[in-house]
């Protein structure tokens, strides 16, 4: 294949040309600071307002409930730390899961060092959070339940509505890290009883360095980034107008194409999964069979190691990942794969392929052939494999 086959859309996505187009004027011409008095900059304020409206609309939220941040990670930090601070009178207990992104897990660990207590609820072998465990974990001091909408590694979609209902019944705030789900799955914050929701631009063909936190009206959360009066005094820092405009455009496109995109991705994904499972021995699919993101496939190939697999795929022009991108500098096996019960050495041999509607069926077929070849080659080199 001449063309690079990019199958790492969960790590990041290319910015769509229409999005770049929408952003461009805001770099060089309409560059003004939207907080300024002069008309020239006031136009930028309306561009920000329009993006906020598009995003709010996509969630069934009000524009005043959307606060722009620098990305999903900041949104997660903000939601969790400032809920902890604002509601510390009520209690010091937080419930989350073992398979959250590090942006949530490390934030919770930080809070644990500062007097908070955190319960990390288990998931089943498909990566679905155990609702009975979650319910049992609730204490009178529980102030927050934080469960990701969809997992970034194995793609499992959580029963968010049920969790929202549990939270609501118990008078506990509910945060969801929807970085992987927003723009890929239909979300309604009211239907799902979501109080706080994190999302990020670069996962939906928008720019990097922009995200938002949805904060339900009435919540007492304060700022996490202190300073100027931007974002209604809740998130300081000169507004990143081009990125906000680009994010708005990306959301508009993602919403408009969602159904069609999902349909195409599902077809490709299911073909890929069924053929890999049928044609490669000693392989398992990680994550839920049905309740999974339409673009996610995650396999564990026994007896081989992920990085070698990735480099060999790269040599064949296929970009993929093993574990999450931001931990690929790390040597530990993925905490998500361990949480669904994989032993270390099998977790090591995992491969995540996250598609887009830009991929063709021919490319998927090529990928299947290459995976078979490479797995075979690596196994022949493995001291663990005796055939």
């Amino acid at each position, binding site marked *: 294949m001449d063309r690079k086959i990019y199958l790492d859309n969960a790590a990041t996505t290319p910015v769509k040309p229409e999005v770049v187009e929408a952003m461009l004027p805001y770099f060089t011409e309409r560059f003004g600071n939207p907080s300024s008095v002069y008309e020239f900059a006031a136009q930028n304020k309306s561009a920000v307002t329009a993006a906020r409206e598009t995003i709010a609309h996509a969630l069934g939220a009000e524009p005043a409930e959307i606060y722009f941040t620098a990305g999903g990670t900041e949104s997660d930090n903000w939601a969790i730390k400032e809920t902890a601070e604002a509601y510390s009178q009520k209690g010091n207990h937080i419930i989350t899961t073992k398979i959250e992104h590090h942006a949530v897990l490390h934030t919770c660990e930080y809070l644990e060092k500062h007097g908070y207590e955190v319960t990390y609820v288990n998931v089943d072998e498909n990566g679905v959070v155990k609702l009975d465990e979650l319910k049992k974990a609730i204490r009178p001091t529980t102030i927050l339940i934080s469960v990701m909408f969809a997992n970034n590694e194995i793609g499992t979609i959580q029963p968010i509505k049920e969790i929202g209902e549990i939270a609501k019944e118990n008078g506990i705030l509910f945060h969801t890290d929807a970085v992987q789900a927003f723009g890929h799955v239909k979300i309604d914050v009211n239907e799902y009883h979501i109080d706080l929701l994190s999302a990020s631009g670069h996962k939906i063909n928008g720019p990097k360095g922009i995200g938002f936190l949805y904060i339900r009206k009435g919540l007492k959360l304060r700022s996490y980034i202190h300073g100027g009066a931007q974002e209604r005094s809740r998130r300081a820092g000169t507004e990143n107008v081009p990125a906000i405009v680009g994010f708005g455009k990306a959301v508009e496109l993602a919403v408009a194409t969602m159904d069609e995109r999902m349909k195409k991705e599902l077809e490709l994904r299911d073909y890929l999964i069924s053929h890999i499972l049928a044609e490669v021995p000693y392989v398992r699919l990680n994550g839920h069979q049905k309740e999974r993101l339409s673009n996610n496939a995650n396999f564990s190939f026994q007896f081989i190691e992920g990085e*070698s697999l990735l*480099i060999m795929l790269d*040599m064949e022009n296929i970009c993929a990942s093993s574990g999450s991108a931001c931990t690929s500098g790390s040597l530990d*096996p993925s905490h998500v794969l361990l949480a669904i019960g994989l032993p270390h050495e099998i977790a090591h041999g995992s491969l995540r392929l996250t598609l887009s509607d830009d991929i063709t069926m021919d490319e998927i077929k090529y990928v299947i052939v290459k995976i078979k070849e490479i797995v075979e080659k690596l196994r022949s*080199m*493995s001291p663990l494999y005796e055939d």
Partner: protein
Amino acid sequence: MYTEKVMDHFKNPRNVGEIENASGVGTVGNAKCGDIMRIYLDIDENEIIQDVKFKTFGCGAAVATSSMATELVKGKTVQEALAVTNKAVMEALDGLPPVKVHCSLLAEEAIHAALWDYAEKNGIKIDGLEKPKNDISEHEEEEEY
């Protein structure tokens, strides 16, 4: 992230395989990353390494260092092989990224383990060779800020 030499040895690893009835076999695992390497040595009566093969379950650097390490010890005496350090292997590969230094230790240790096995089987003692650990794990560096 890897040098051309590393990529070359990764793409075309030298001496992959097994040696039946090898003079010495050593298997080591890296407690840090969970990876495993096995080295087979064929040593003649003059203590010269006639042949060497490896199998590796590990990252790109692990494969490349296995390959390079086997190249470096092939045809050498046992004492010369013992002197092949992970540093020598890394240099021969034009370096490794810092997080991958430990992978080269795997190669050094696997050779030592295979030599130990050879010595035990033959009831000899090799000067300067210590009993290998099953799992190696380098001294944890302080996280550098």
